């Protein structure tokens, strides 16, 4: 795998979605390529920031809203 190919599959790798073969190739490349390794760390840092922000933004659906929606659905179902 070359650096260009790594760029295409790095996100699957970061999220643990690579298949076994892909995983082995990516790891082998990262061990020998400092620029891809550095790139990976930068991406991971951004993704962590995104995830942290997403978690903070997540609002629980208020119980009253939940009940209202379910009532509405039940009425339409009849």
């Amino acid at each position, binding site marked *: 795998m070359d650096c260009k190919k790594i760029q295409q599959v790095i996100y699957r790798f970061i999220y643990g979605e690579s298949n076994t073969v892909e995983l082995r190739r990516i790891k082998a490349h990262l061990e020998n390529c400092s620029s891809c390794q550095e790139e990976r760390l930068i991406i991971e840092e951004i993704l962590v920031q995104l995830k942290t922000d997403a978690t903070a933004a997540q609002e629980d659906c208020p119980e009253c809203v939940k009940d209202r*929606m379910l009532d509405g*659905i039940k009425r339409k179902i009849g």
Partner: protein
Amino acid sequence: MTSVLNSIGSRHSPTRISDEVLVGRLAAGDSGAFDEIFERYHQQIYNFVKKQVSDAESVEDLVQEVFLRVYKSAHNFDVEKKFSSWIYKIALNEVKRHWKRSASRQTYSLNTPLGDEGGDTERADLLEDQRITPDVLTENEIFSKNLRHLIDRLPEKQRMVVMLKVYQDLTFEEIAEICECPLSTVLSRMRYAVNKLRRWLGIEEQEERDEA
């Protein structure tokens, strides 16, 4: 690191009835199955819709529509597929229909179906980038630590991938199914989106350093 990014598995307990089995029961007329599906998914779908639609009343209506569609179309559900992909696809369609109805939301061509492109996807995405990317971010955006504002400035298709990945914890394969496009396209969109956020955040860091 890993724990932050891979918080996915934790919500699936091995002993509980799968979503797919529940839809099967719903299709067979078990209304209790519907209640369970609503219980499992209303929070996620509510959050997903809320992020795309500003007024609260529409959010509630749209969430109701999504679950009504689930109820009415349960018999059409392909048991080989994942339920989560299916319900998000329904939710995405409802949101897009809402955008079409409402003139309030100013984005680029919403008539272009998400993921309906030919082979030249990367180039199309790039062109789309150039069209939508603001040349100059407002001062507020530059200094804002709040990534959400930046995410909102992403081109629609890229934003959707980030939303489904980061906010909804779906796999790229699930997202490809929801957006009805190849996995490679989803990965490209993710890459473009993150690179763009990176550039924008780079501006922010630079500005702050200059100020200090």
